[in-house]
């Protein structure tokens, strides 16, 4: 009987996140450095400040294949107070780039919801680039686990 890792761990009656436990992961997962590099390309080398942007994600993903993520940025979305774009990055996926949302005054609000696949427990990072060039970010750790053993 050929079992996938997911099936094996689920069967154990224990929850199992994909975390290194004394063996070597050889898959080419992105690293925090790759994610930082991507963010720096997006911001033009500027270090994002905290605030203004809120990333909402579950603490533990119910299904790592489709994790709901919402992002919103405080902005009047008119005149100078305008959000240009928001990038979502997952620092533990094979490819850390998830999505970039572009906004205009016509958007009304700078908010977006999507679903993403997360290969393992990792940080999801949302970065907002404002029209005036300032950048903001918010980070959430999302644990990917498979389940079992609920009291």
């Amino acid at each position, binding site marked *: *009987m050929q*079992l996938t890792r997911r*099936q*094996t*761990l*689920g*069967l*154990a*009656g*224990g*929850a*199992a*996140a994909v*975390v*290194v*436990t*004394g*063996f070597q992961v050889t898959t080419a997962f992105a690293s925090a450095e790759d994610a930082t590099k991507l963010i720096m390309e997006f911001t033009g080398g500027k270090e994002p400040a905290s605030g203004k942007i809120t990333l*909402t994600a*579950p*603490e*533990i993903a*119910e*299904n790592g294949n489709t994790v*709901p993520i919402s992002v919103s940025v405080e902005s009047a979305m008119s005149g100078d107070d305008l959000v240009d774009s928001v990038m979502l990055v997952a620092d533990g996926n094979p490819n850390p780039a998830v999505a970039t949302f572009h906004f205009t005054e016509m958007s009304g609000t700078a908010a977006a*919801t999507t679903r993403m696949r997360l290969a393992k427990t990792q940080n999801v990072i949302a970065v907002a680039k404002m029209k005036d060039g300032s950048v903001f970010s918010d980070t959430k750790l999302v*644990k990917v*686990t*498979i*389940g*079992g*053993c*609920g*009291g």
Partner: protein
Amino acid sequence: MFTRRDFLQYTVNASIALGAAAGFSGNFSRALAQQKLTQDDLLKFDSKGQITLLHFTDVHAQLKPVFFRPPDTNIGVGDYAGIPPHLVGEEFLTHFGIEAGSPLAYAHTYLDYVNLAKTYGRLGGLDRTATLVKAIRAERGDDKVLFLDGGDTWQGSYTSLKTNGQDMVDCMKMLKPDAMVGHWEFTFGAERVMEIVESMGYPFLASNIYDNEWDEPVFESTAMYEKGGVKVAVIGQAMPYTPIANPRWMFPKWSFGIRPEALQANVDKAREEGAEVVVLLSHDGFDVDRKLASVVSGIDVIVTGHTHDAIPHAIEIGNTLLLSSGSHGKYLGRIDLEVKDGKVVGHSSNLIPVFSDVITPDPEMAAKIDEVRAPYEAECQRVIGRTEDLLYRRGNFNGTWDDLICQGIIEQRDTQIALSPGFRWGTTLLPGQDITIDDLYTETSMNYPSVYRLEFTGTQLKEIMEDVCDNLFNKDPFFQQGGDMVRVGGMSYTCAPNEEMGNRISDMRLTSTGELLEPDKNYVVGGWASVNENVEGPAIYDLMEKHISEKKVVKMPEQSTVAVKM
């Protein structure tokens, strides 16, 4: 003024009057204990203000009184170490000012459990709870009392399994709850949950369950009540990790989560609509709610369940009161609130231990329980064996009931290692007691009972152990799922709760030979309650009925296969 300390005195009476002579061996007769403890003593309360909240939670379908040994290990980590609910035994008694050997010591700790169990008898029984609820409603007036069911109500017995929870629904209805929340309820499947919710006559509340297609709330989040002239909002919070801890395929369209933002929005909305008191009826677990109280503002009271912690009175966390009313029908939680100008200005609280030999059963409920059990009574009473040792489950790492289950899996399915989930439900049998079908099902009743048999590598086993351990000992309670550690048979290990994930579990050895598990070697493993769909194997209750029947007499002394490194 009647203080908490005074209240506790009733619990001390028996032990001071008698314990002085008898020491703390608990070696005084039940009759004497009963003379000292009366139903009126149990109902004594510093009544206050306009509102009484009654909280009943995690009964796990136990209609009849039970023995339930409290845990000897309940470790807290990080900021949560050494504070309630992470106190057991002597530490618990000292913290709450409870005399050793007293009825409250018996209800709340494992100390001298077998002797005290023989002295004070079983706790719980829905007919006894009914007596207390009726008495409090009569004392305070119906218009002042809110009775809240914290969930994990429908699952956990032979009759609830056979009736799809209908036995519990019919009996609970008679207690006239004002609202309920859920967790194991969902393991009856989404369709059955909706069927009951639509017919039960009181709201099933959940602020944190959303349809995963449209992201819309599945249930009402909030119910408003007028009690003692005060407007009260009750918001429900279902077990946030139900789709992870239990099979998601049973309710595939529902998404859960803690969702503090949704909760804050619902609290604010309730306030806008004129609520003077906001109550969260929660199945989050104690530490999750301790943190939630500091993250969400505007909640006056959280009545919490899930982690089965029985804490003698409400704990204050900032401006929020947190009451945790135990499990298996052992307690009825009560909080009285005094409200002035839209603010809670005073309160009193306690857990009433439901001593079944002291409380007169409510005749109507007793008759109803007999009625719902009647078709199954003979089967429930059928004796399949006897135990020479204490059989219990609750505790962070192991319990003798699970040791017996692991032994059953290893012997019946011919495996090297057995895994049994760290459920916190399941009652206790005293040495010398018969094991009946009823008893077996208090440990195993569930809708995904198949016992699998598979090969795992040492690395896979280590991963599983580390992952479950992180659900228990993650320093951030929002990552805890509320169960205990997976129980392991055929293998010993060391656990270091304060380490990070990946470094907690070490020294995994086969108990048969003492050899260390090798990362790449395969081991034959059996286990039950997998969250995967279409798992093949016999049901755990059938396997264990066969195992116990074959053993006839069960010997299961305490084992020391888990070394805990603090």
